[in-house]
Structure formats: structure tokens, C-alpha cells
């Protein structure tokens, strides 16, 4: 009788552990694929020879262009470059119709965050990889995950559930991550440094 009591308790415990560690984190995200597949590796390969800045440029005013618009892609992709189905679709659906691709932005910060690439690139000399990892050498665009409650993209939120590891690019781009880097570099900061 006593055993049964503890057993019931343990079953409940295990069920919750399983749910809390696996089911809930899985169910928490809405997954979607990018509208068009894209290979950063091909574009940065020697054959094409583009650098990050060629498409993700910084204007004189310090404003970061973000994801390139169709006008950046169209000159090279007026004709299909290769035979992939995505390439064909990209030409037919977007370039030909002059329709912007609705890219899902992995690193899109929420509305209340101010972030400028200019001071980080030009003054602090950070490399793209430091925040965006090896994104520039990937062959395909990852599945985009968005937190159903907070609406944050998974890249911003981070992939770890416990967030105990030291700073790594895929630990996320939440406030604590920005703050940690600032503290390591002795950057004086206040709320208004990063909020708008």
C-alpha cells in the first residue's frame, strides 16, 4: 500500500519531467520553412566570391540594410543560375513578378530593442560570426522556429533550455547575452543603450 502511494507519486513526477523537458519545449515553437531555399555557401564560395557586406551592407548613415531586397539579387538572377527547383521558383515567382521575398529573419529583435550594426562592426570590430555563427557558410536555410507565446525567433531566444553555458552564438541574443558581452568588454551601458 505504501509502495503504491510512492509509485503513483513517482509516475506523476516522471510524467511531468518528460513533459517539461521534451514535450513542452517541442510544442512551444511554431516551425516554418523559408519561402525560398538559399545557400550562403555557394554565394560566399570562391566561384561567386561574395562577402557578407556585399549583400548585408551598412549605409553611410550607419543604418544596416538587413536582408537584401530583390533589387540586390535580381541582377545576377535575371536568368536561372543552376537547375534547382528553388532557383526556378525564385525566378518565376519573385524576380519575374518583381515581388519581394518575405524572408523569415532569424535574428529579428523585438520592436522595443534598438540595435545598430555600425558601432559593433566599425568601432568594436566584431566579426559577423561572433553573433551569427557559421550562418554564412551553410548550405541551406534552417527551419525557422518561433516561440508561440513570446513570438521571439528561436535564434534570439537561444537553443539551450537551461542557459548555463558560457557565451556561444547559439545561446541566443537576449538582453543578458548582449549585456554579458558589454560587461566583458567594459562597455558602459544603461537601459537606453539598447532599448527604444
Amino acid at each position: 500500500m505504501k509502495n503504491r502511494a510512492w509509485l503513483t507519486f513517482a509516475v506523476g513526477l516522471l510524467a511531468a519531467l518528460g513533459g517539461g523537458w521534451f514535450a513542452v519545449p517541442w510544442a512551444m515553437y511554431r516551425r516554418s520553412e523559408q519561402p525560398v531555399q538559399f545557400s550562403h555557401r555557394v554565394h560566399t564560395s570562391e566561384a561567386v566570391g561574395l562577402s557578407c557586406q556585399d549583400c548585408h551592407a551598412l549605409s553611410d548613415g550607419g543604418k544596416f540594410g538587413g536582408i537584401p531586397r530583390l533589387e540586390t539579387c535580381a541582377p545576377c538572377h535575371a536568368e536561372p543560375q543552376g537547375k534547382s527547383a528553388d532557383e526556378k521558383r525564385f525566378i518565376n515567382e519573385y524576380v519575374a513578378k518583381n515581388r519581394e521575398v518575405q524572408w523569415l529573419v532569424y535574428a529579428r529583435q523585438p520592436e522595443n530593442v534598438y540595435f545598430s550594426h555600425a558601432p559593433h562592426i566599425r568601432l568594436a570590430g566584431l566579426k559577423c560570426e561572433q553573433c551569427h555563427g557559421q550562418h554564412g557558410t551553410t548550405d541551406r536555410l534552417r527551419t525557422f522556429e518561433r516561440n508561440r507565446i513570446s513570438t521571439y525567433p528561436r535564434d534570439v531566444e537561444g537553443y539551450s533550455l537551461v542557459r548555463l553555458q558560457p557565451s556561444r552564438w547559439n545561446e541566443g541574443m537576449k538582453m543578458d547575452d548582449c549585456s554579458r558581452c558589454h560587461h566583458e568588454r567594459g562597455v558602459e551601458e544603461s537601459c537606453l543603450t539598447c532599448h527604444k
Partner: protein
Amino acid sequence: MNTAHKPKARYGMVIDLDRCNGCGGCAAACAVENNVPPAAPKASDRTGLTWMRIYRAENGRSFPENRTAFFPISCQHCGAHTPCVSVCPQNAVDINPETGVVSQIPPRCLGCRYCMTACPFHARYFNWSDPEWPRDMENALNPDVSVRMRGVVEKCNFCHSRWQAAVAKAAANGKREIDPADYVPACVEACPTEAIAFGNLDDPRSEVSRQSRAPNAFRLLAKLGTDPKVYYRSDRDWVRRMGDTDVAYESEASRG
């Protein structure tokens, strides 16, 4: 205490009250720049959101000896014992060490409104309702400032987004110092009579520092010792006396 350290720059304002005709341009420009929503249904002068609010001050005499002056009042960006910074239970308010600007961060704000009771300038405003613009007018919002949700406090931050833009512009050119011309708050820009001077108070060459030292310059509630960074100027004695701490005493003026 986190309010004690000295900021790199101390941005401030000097408002010449003898040039202010109460047109309200500063208030309108502020609302446009900072995405301050129009009045919610039933909102009044007591529940509205006016980061820059123009008060009418009277000399207390009866007609025709009465005189009026306009006091544009925004957050005074207190530099010492900043009342709102010390009271916020969760650090939603602090002082930017680079600009001396007192912040208010809506996503951190709990909406307890303790800072509002602490502020002697009534310069803090609470979002009693969700923000709402007429349909499609969100296309006319400024993308550099986030829209606040209901239940949080907001206030003037000297158009901090313009400072951020100026920093980004300087950084893009490899510079750490901003061009002062790139950082002018919306109210200062909009004032038709150029009654407001803005800049770094610590820079002795700046117009604002020169004007703040003028003999007719004063600050509101200076005796409270909060070291506001907004100065006022007037050649009229009674207007200068309006800056004192003493409370109004006319019962007639009370609004229920």
C-alpha cells in the same frame, strides 16, 4: 547609488519663456516623433500622455493686472538624487552614463507608478489604455521608437532615438563622438520661435551651457536638490518666481 556617477555628457535644455507663445508645436512634434498615441476615449488632461506639456502659469492677480506665461515641461532629467530612479523596484529607470538622460523602459516597467508619485514635475505619464491610432495611421509611426503597451509609464527621453541614430552615423564613419547637429530633440527642432536651446551642458562652448549660466536662468524646484538638466529663462520677475517650490494656494484654481 547608481545615480551618483557622473555621466560622460550632460545633455540639457534651456527654454526661454519670454519667447514661448504656447503654440504647442513642441508637444505635437514630440507626439509624432515618439509615437505617443492620440487621447484614448475619455482621456483628459489628467490621464493624457504629453511628454512635453505646456502649462499656463498666472501671476495670481486679478484682471487686468493678471499676466500669463507658458511653461513647457518635459522630464527634467534630474542629475542628483533622481527621484524616479531610486524608487523603481525593478530598474526600469536609470540614467544613461553617456548622455545623462533619465530613461524609462516600458518593457521592464511593472506599472506600479511609484515613480510618478516620486516625480515633483509630474513629467511621467501612465498608459491608462492600449495605444490606438485611426486605421492605417500606424503607417505614419516613427520606426525608431517602439510603441508602448497599456499599463506602463512613459516620459520624455530627449528623443533618445535621435541620439542613437547620431551615434550610428558617427560609428559608420569610424567616429566615437557624435556631431552635435545630428542630435536635436523633436521639440527643439519644431519650436518656431527657437525658444529652446539644447546640447551638452558640460561643454562650456555650447549655446546651452552659455544660456544656462545667464543671470535670468533658473530651474524648477531647485531647492529640492535634484539638479534638473532643464533650465528656464525669463526677464520677468514673477515668472522666475514660478520656479520656486512653494505650492499654489488658490482654492479657486482647484479642479475636481
